[in-house]
């Protein structure tokens, strides 16, 4: 019974706040806009607190893996040790201190840059494999478009830019066909966003966990 009441209460709060935020965005009436601004500030603060909770959750999961001596727990030890070092340095020296920035620039940035390079290779390999599972016209058009855009964008050795491809076909594909298609997709995404929001407002979707 207590759980059910809690669920009803959280659903009522979510619906009321959702309605205020929506009306505040569409009807710029003084009081409504002010309440909306305060609620959005609260949401941002709560999201920041949730970030800290997320970090603790990450710590707990990896501590559990280390305790259970699971496969790959050595990486969990590394993660926990470096997380504690970074948090301690950040708290005592401040996030803009050169030592903290060095940790970020010497470890985080190169690792993420390397993964971007891995992504480029992965995509090249995936485009080769694509015709294995998609043998339809769409797959052929997808690969042909990617090749045309690549040839039209990147200067080729000894040739430079390809005349017709670089200044006629590539701009047409990118600015007319792709932009038109992207607008169509974005319109669909906007309609999906609208109906998802309405389901939350009706209480049909309750991601905050109440039954």
């Amino acid at each position, binding site marked *: 019974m207590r759980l059910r009441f809690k669920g009803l209460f959280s659903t009522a709060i979510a619906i009321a706040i959702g309605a205020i935020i929506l009306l505040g965005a569409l009807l710029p009436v003084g009081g409504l806009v002010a309440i909306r601004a305060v609620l959005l500030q609260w949401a941002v603060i709560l999201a920041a607190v949730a970030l800290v909770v997320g970090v603790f959750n990450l710590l707990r999961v990896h501590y559990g893996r280390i305790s259970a001596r699971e496969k790959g727990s050595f990486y969990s030890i590394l993660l926990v040790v470096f997380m504690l070092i970074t948090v301690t340095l950040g708290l005592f020296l401040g996030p803009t201190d050169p030592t903290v920035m060095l940790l970020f620039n010497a470890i985080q940035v190169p690792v993420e840059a390397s993964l971007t390079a891995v992504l480029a290779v992965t995509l090249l390999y995936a485009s080769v494999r694509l015709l294995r599972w998609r043998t339809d016209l769409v797959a052929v058009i997808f690969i042909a478009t990617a090749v045309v855009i690549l040839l039209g964008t990147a200067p080729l050795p000894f040739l430079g830019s390809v005349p017709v491809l670089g200044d006629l076909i590539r701009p047409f594909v990118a600015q007319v066909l792709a932009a038109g298609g992207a607008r169509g997709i974005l319109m669909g995404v906007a309609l999906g966003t609208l109906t998802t929001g309405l*389901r939350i407002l009706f209480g049909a979707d309750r991601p905050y966990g109440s039954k």
Partner: protein
Amino acid sequence: MNLTGLAALGIVGISVVLLIVLSLLHRRTPFKFRDMPIYSRLRRAIGLAVEDGTRVHFALGRGSIVTPAAASTLVALSALQRVGERTAVSDNPPIATAGDGALAILAQDSLSSAYDSAGALDLFDPDSARAAGLTPFSYAAATIPILHDENISTNVVMGSFGMEAALIADSAERENIFTLAASDQIPAQAVLFATTPDALIGEELYAAGAYLQSGPMHSASLAVQDLLRWGIVGVIVGGALLKLLGVL
């Protein structure tokens, strides 16, 4: 109030009315949507995972609930709850990974609700929903080992992802894990199209609730999307014709 605000309010109002009417109609006579084999394959893969004692992994992406990416994230949470209800009593419960603190908490709540609905709340492990990494590539780097080590047979990549989703999908493909992948971002849709056979394009992501039988409201909202889309097509074509005739 400006004209744009008024028009937006009108569209929201029409959508609300349509949602209520179509929801009531769906209860009487369920709608039939076009066949989407991807969702049939997902249902089959989930059934097989429960039968053979393997896990379902749900990657929720990095969409924060205070950004415009919240809608795709909420759709993914709804799908997670549905998948959780079907797999709660499995020997190996599902795992959800998030790239945002708030999203990890919501994923825990969604899974907890799913276990509660399945009457197995005592089996729920809060660590089955976790924040994996807080930047795009750290999230992908933390998710890939889960696919290798945690006996995963079904991988759902759904939510707000950038191009890092390709690394997760490709890794799953190498492990012969069934992957359903969907993102609200166009670059991610392009790379997912190339890396996995079961990628959802455009607004197909928002149809997840209707195809996973999450309830009449989900089916009604999909029908509302279709009706509004036809309305927009009519307005665009009509506007173009009027412009051609010199009326506008």
